[in-house]
């Protein structure tokens, strides 16, 4: 059965983290997912939160309402956008007065929010909606025995009460997906839930890079072959800034960092050059994958 979603790109993925977008646009259709580009999406609202919470809520509600207008569920690959939109749904569903107020504001554009549309992130799309069995059936080039570590990122695991795609203390869905792809992920490592550093980047760049560096260093020391993430912010830290992070903690870092969708594409038989791997700044080419046909 074909699954159709409106793709909510957010800001970071289409302006900087192209690898994520390229790979998911290539890999997901193989699993029967149709991604629709809808016009009019704006910022998710989250960056405004410390300045104007009402605006944050309005921007989130507006995006949800646009998806609703097109009768499409939303696919939100950015964990931060996903959290902002989830929080908006949580607030509007538990506060009828605010829902009414938002709808009053949305009326100017002829939009309404009723809360009919579902929200998915890459992880629950693959794990809960497509399912491990379907993924397994489509695997052409298993990631044989690749020892990988998963990084979930804070926005994906917290806060639980607004509804997150994974368990907050012991998330295992990425590992399960990686196993379905034939890899051999470490299900538990002490630093698994450690922060990527990104939230500190604007104000305390040094501390931010220390967090990034410490986590990568620990992964490297444990002999893990690569790190897998699902959030453009985390990837920006672990991949794009890996060299800098290494300098901050005085370590030579060489941890290959992948988007889950890049590995998914490889396993599903998507050609390597179509997955944006050349855009990863970490040494992903040190791992040799079975060449896609």
């Amino acid at each position, binding site marked *: 059965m074909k699954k159709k979603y409106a793709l909510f790109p957010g800001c970071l993925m289409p302006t900087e983290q192209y690898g994520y977008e390229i790979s998911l646009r290539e890999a997901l259709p193989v699993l029967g997912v149709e991604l629709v580009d809808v016009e009019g999406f704006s910022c998710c609202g989250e960056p405004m939160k410390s300045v104007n919470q009402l605006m944050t809520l309005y921007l989130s509600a507006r995006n949800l309402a646009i998806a609703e207008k097109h009768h499409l569920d939303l696919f939100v690959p950015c964990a931060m956008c996903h959290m902002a939109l989830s929080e908006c749904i949580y607030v509007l569903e538990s506060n009828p007065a605010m829902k009414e107020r938002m709808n009053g504001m949305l009326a100017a554009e002829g939009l309404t929010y009723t809360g009919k549309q579902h929200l998915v992130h890459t992880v629950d799309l693959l794990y809960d909606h497509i399912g491990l069995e379907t993924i397994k059936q489509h695997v052409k080039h298993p990631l044989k025995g690749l020892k990988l570590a998963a990084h979930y990122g804070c926005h994906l695991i917290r806060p639980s009460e607004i509804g997150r795609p994974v*368990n907050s*203390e*012991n998330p295992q869905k990425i590992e399960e997906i990686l196993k379905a792809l034939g890899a051999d992920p470490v299900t*538990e490592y*002490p*630093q698994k*839930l450690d922060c990527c550093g990104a939230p500190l980047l604007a104000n305390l760049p040094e501390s931010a890079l220390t967090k990034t560096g410490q986590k990568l260093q620990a992964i490297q020391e444990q002999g893990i072959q690569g790190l897998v993430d699902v959030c453009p912010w985390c990837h920006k830290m672990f991949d794009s800034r890996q060299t800098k992070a290494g300098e901050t903690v005085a370590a030579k870092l060489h941890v290959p960092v992948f988007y889950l969708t890049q590995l998914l594409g490889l396993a599903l038989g998507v050609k390597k050059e179509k997955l944006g791997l050349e855009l990863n700044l970490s040494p992903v080419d040190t791992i040799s994958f079975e060449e896609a046909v």
Partner: protein
Amino acid sequence: MRRIGVFVCHCGINIAQTVDVEAVTEYAKNLDGVVIAKNYKYMCSDVGATLIKDMIKEHKLDAVVIASCSPRMHEHTFRRVASDGGVNPYRVEIANIREQCSWAHTDKKQATEKAKYLVRSAVSKARLNEPLKTSSIKVIPEALVIGAGIAGIQASLDLANDGFKVHLVERDPSIGGHMAQLDKTFPTLDCSSCILTPKMMEVANHENIELLTYSEIVSVDGSIGNYTVKIRKKPRYVDVEKCTGCGDCATACRLKDRITSEFNQGMGKRGAAYMPFPQAVPLKYCLDASKCLFLTRGKCGDEPLCKKACAQGAIDFDQKEEIIERKVGSIIVATGYDLLDPAKMYEYGYTTSPDVITTLELERLISSSGPTKGEILRPSNQQKPKSVTFVLCAGSRDETQCTWCCRIGCMSALKHVYLLREKLGDDVEINLCYQDIRSYGKGYEEFYRNVRGLSTNMFRGKPSEIRTMKDHLKLDIFDTTVNKLFEIKTDLVVLVPALVPRADAQEFARLLRLTLSGDGFFLEAHPKLRPMDTFVNGIFIAGCCQGPKDIQDTVSQASGAASRAATILSKEEMEIDPLIAAVDEDICTGCGICIEVCPYEARSLNEKTKVAEVNEALCAGCGGCIAACPSNASIHKNFTKKQLLNQVDEILE
């Protein structure tokens, strides 16, 4: 026409500040059948009681309505007052204008109106209340005690020494409960088994105690003074008459040292033929039917080795479970507690490292009869730890797990610090992460002060996560007394988990018709004044099944419950409430539906008259038969259909 008196209580200001009691009194005067209405500050006081009695005499009243607190509180009081004044106690009606009116509302005008309606409704019922007579039943002077931990043991011994026959039922193969697992007790550091074992022996040898171990309650029927209990005796597959407790079967068992020992909290192993611990009572072996090769597969090598080893021929694979019946006058429930499973809190690393253990597991390590013979060794490598860290309130006082305090965690951890210092010496680092130290009992604070002197690192805070590193554990803790983040590297983490109700508490409560409080423990009839009573007459609760408590409090409560039970058992006869079912013989068709629905076996068919009857000793007044009767022949005395519909009509008017 009845002559009804209405008495409105102020309850100090509890009622009077929200309800205009004068207005309610004036209103009541004009109701049909009311000849006098009065109000007073405390109707339940001596002066109030005298007022009621005087009015009964002066106005020749034959029914009384009290507008006051819930009937649960003072119905009994006012029935006695009316009876003393010469009115049948079952012609007293309570209008609850406190819990259901003044306490629930803030608007005085509306609350007053509501109070008027409540009084009016009660008066309408009082007009039709019949005078009833109490009847009496014979009390069976025997007691059932469920659970043979320290609470059950204490209650049984008290009752048995009072001269009553006690049936003590224990689910496990041995009595002793959690206390048998402990090494030392706080704050006096008494050896737990040294003070418990004599009591266990006394239970085993007492002529008035019938000990039923490895047995479970199947059903409880009847009511106060006359309960019928069915008990399932699980097969031990060992003839207890022949077994001498020599242990040859356990030594011979093919599964020896291959099954996790429940008694040792998973810290040690046992076989399928086993005795939970060396001081077990009864000192008899038992075969684990879920593990024993012969019992699960029908084959154990060429022949079962235990059978071959037993010189007494006590092993009996043909034993079947047995259901026995006992009749008792009163029941004491002492089923104890479970520890919260730390696996539920993934962040504490209980599932990721063998070196994260619970207090009860540490008890078994410290105990000289435990798996390590009292040596403190890390489960991962059997080496002495150089650093031990206690994490208190693991799941306690935590909105995501258990909101309540476990009441024993602080003291048990302090006790362990003391014992570890003694066993491991001064060069071992001991850290203790706490929220608050609650050393509230007699001698506890002094004990705490002593332990603080034992160079213990106290951190006021809760670690967010316990990380399993290569050869050690790591935790970050923010100490709120110094506002600093500490990073602790440690070898052994001891979690002090929350105390939770038994996993099957809910199921068990249904069996006995007990109520649970919000936290899942058994609910007492009144938190302050009836802490051992339940809402089921004749059933009492003791120990941790009612809520977490230490051994001292448990023993006190158990003795209290025994004395409450003795109050019943010492009576030859017991008055029973006449507010029960009755039959209108002219209407009853003898269809028998009431007999089917009655859970107390109180209904039967008179074969001669073909009319259903009520056994007044068994009827609990639940009303099941009244609702089920298709011809309205079953009635509830003083709660007739007419009375209840009248009440509703009066309120809706």
